[in-house]
């Protein structure tokens, strides 16, 4: 990309209020992903939408782990709000998110989840707010974005699928939209199970293009990494036709 175009883009970004992001970005620490995201990482005062690839609970678990990995790489306390209290704190600790850094709010219904998220996003004392919902409307997502922009707190929506329902593909105001699908992991030299592997898809990205990568799942510090057997191959990164 020529420096001239880069400069123009920066100016347009300044003009657009929507791209005003207090708090900077959270880089993944993986060059291929960070280079693809505007600003070099996930914008903090903004909304990000994370879904599992399939229609069952296994994929929702992968999405939750992806979100936990993001929280693990931030500093400070986060709030996680959900209607079904099935989060297992030791499992989140395995992704680098210790129990003392997470507050839980269990809500009676999804409407309340969104209300709690909005309220919590106004408090700059948190590093991020995670909410689990099945449906997110344009209006609801815009409210979250506005609250997040004001405080600079990152908003994450983890999609829960209701049994047998098709994926919710409504357009939202989220800055990025991710889909996490488990993939078969690489064989170990000995019997046993290695690091999990995910297909990480960036389905929508404001100010960027969709892409997908095959990544090794969160390690004990919440970091993703390129699979060692693919690190040098071009095939690790593909692009959708936009």
């Amino acid at each position, binding site marked *: 990309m020529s420096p001239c175009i880069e400069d123009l883009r920066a100016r347009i970004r300044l003009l657009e209020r929507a791209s005003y992001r207090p708090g900077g970005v959270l880089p993944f620490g993986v060059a291929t992903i960070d280079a693809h995201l505007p600003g070099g990482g996930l914008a903090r005062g903004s909304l990000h939408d994370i879904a599992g690839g399939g229609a069952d609970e296994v994929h929702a*678990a992968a999405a939750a782990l992806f979100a936990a990995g993001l929280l693990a790489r931030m500093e*400070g*306390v986060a709030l996680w709000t959900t209607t079904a209290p099935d989060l297992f704190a030791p*499992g989140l*600790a395995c992704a680098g998110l210790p129990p003392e850094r997470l507050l839980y709010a269990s809500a009676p219904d999804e409407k309340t989840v969104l209300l709690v998220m909005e309220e919590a996003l106004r408090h700059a*004392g948190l590093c991020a707010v995670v909410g689990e919902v099945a449906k997110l409307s344009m209006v609801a997502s815009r409210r979250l974005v506005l609250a997040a922009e004001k405080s600079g707190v990152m908003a994450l929506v983890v999609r829960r699928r209701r049994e047998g329902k098709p994926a919710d593909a409504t357009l939202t105001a989220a800055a990025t939209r991710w889909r*996490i699908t488990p993939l078969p992991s690489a064989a170990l030299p000995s019997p046993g199970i290695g690091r*999990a592997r995910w297909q990480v898809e960036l389905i929508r990205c404001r100010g960027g293009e969709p892409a997908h990568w095959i990544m090794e799942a969160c390690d004990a510090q919440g970091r993703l990494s390129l699979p060692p057997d693919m690190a040098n191959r071009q095939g690790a990164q593909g692009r959708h036709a936009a």
Partner: protein
Amino acid sequence: MQPDADRPLLLAARQGPRRIITAVDATGAALGLYAGMAVAQAQAQVPDLAIAEADPVADAAALSRLAGWCLRRATPLAAPNPPDGVWLDVTGCTHLFGGDASMLDFLTGRLTDAGIAVRAAMAPTPGGAHALARYGTSKITVAPDGAMRALLEPLPVAALRLDDGTVQGLRRLGFETIGALMRTPRAPLSRRFGATALRRLDQALGHVPEPIEPMALPGLPRTRLGFPEPIATPEDLARAATLLTDALCEKLRRRGLGASRLDLLCQRVDGAAQALRIGTAAATRDAAHLTRLLLPQLQTIDPGFGIEAMLLTASLTTRLDAAQFSSLADTAQQTDLATLVDVLANRLGEERIYAVHAVPSDIPERACRRVPPLARTAATSWPDRLPRPPRLFDPPRRVEAVSLLPDHPPVSFTWQRRAHRIRRADGPERVFGEWWKTPNEMFAARDYFQVEDYNGQRFWLFRQGNGEDASTGNMQWFLHGLFG
């Protein structure tokens, strides 16, 4: 007087020339003694009686203390209802206890623990609750909306808070139950017994409002605002609440106190009182914070034809000395979290916002404990190197699995009618039962496996038992968690 299991205990009082029993304990009641009986007659029936002088003044004081406890513990609208009852208006409070029935369970449980024999009823009207608490069939009754009529019908007329003469008169005319009274033409009844009997009936059914005059605990910091014209709009209410909070915080500051609970009482022109209560995790006298907690709750107040006075009480206070607020970022963040926790706790209920602490237990479902959100961090943590899923099923889901005994991972398993063929697996991780908790777990063991199927989906399975000895478990397989 020390109660004695074998010796019936009576309370007696002078009534005219006679001494009358005013209260009997369970032993005495079993021997056929009852309140209203002459003491001389009782002594003739049962020779060895323990008789104490009734002390109505002390009784009233004790009842008032009990109402005060309810006021502090349960609801801002409580009042003693002599001789033996306490009124509680729990509108808008029950969700903080997890529902109507569990609130009554909690209150009766605490009172029973304190050695008080208690019956409780919750009903849409004070009169109905009064009747059901004293004459209902069970110790705890919750009357749903619209069921008042049906519930009152079988109760005796005495349940309507009538004086003895009226009850006797009604009985003489053949009115045994409230139902019979409901079905009778009203005019002759009121001519014969006066308006009171019918008013009590109407109050119990909710046709006539019956406000509870709430008691106020002496010595608590409070501010009151009376309005020359009744107010009703949400804006006016909000403005009045802000003024009250500011004034109360000033009072608290002068007394060196911080409030961790505020009760707002709105007196309506029709005499009814509406109340709401907010709580904070840490004592505070920050007017802005308290106003912020108070304002969203104001919409639960029904102003009716208007509110003529508002009363704000700090019902729970602790010493809060003038503090020098540190400018360190850490402290600022802590304060901010307390604000957020308060806002959410007042909106969702206290038990819905929590943190999780590690519990040293190998059994996964016991490894966590919910604690208040601002509790100090415990030192214990979970062992790092063991794989744990981010989502846990509690209770574990039963699955059908095919595996080699004794300690091989399953080859495949079926969950939600879908077969998963296992490609890779890790395990077993053996977890033993905690025999010091329950004897059932004396020999129990579980073998945990982390498995990955051909699609790359990862599951956390366990087998009940160690695979060799049937006393350790029945070899059934369970899905306990999902790794994604």
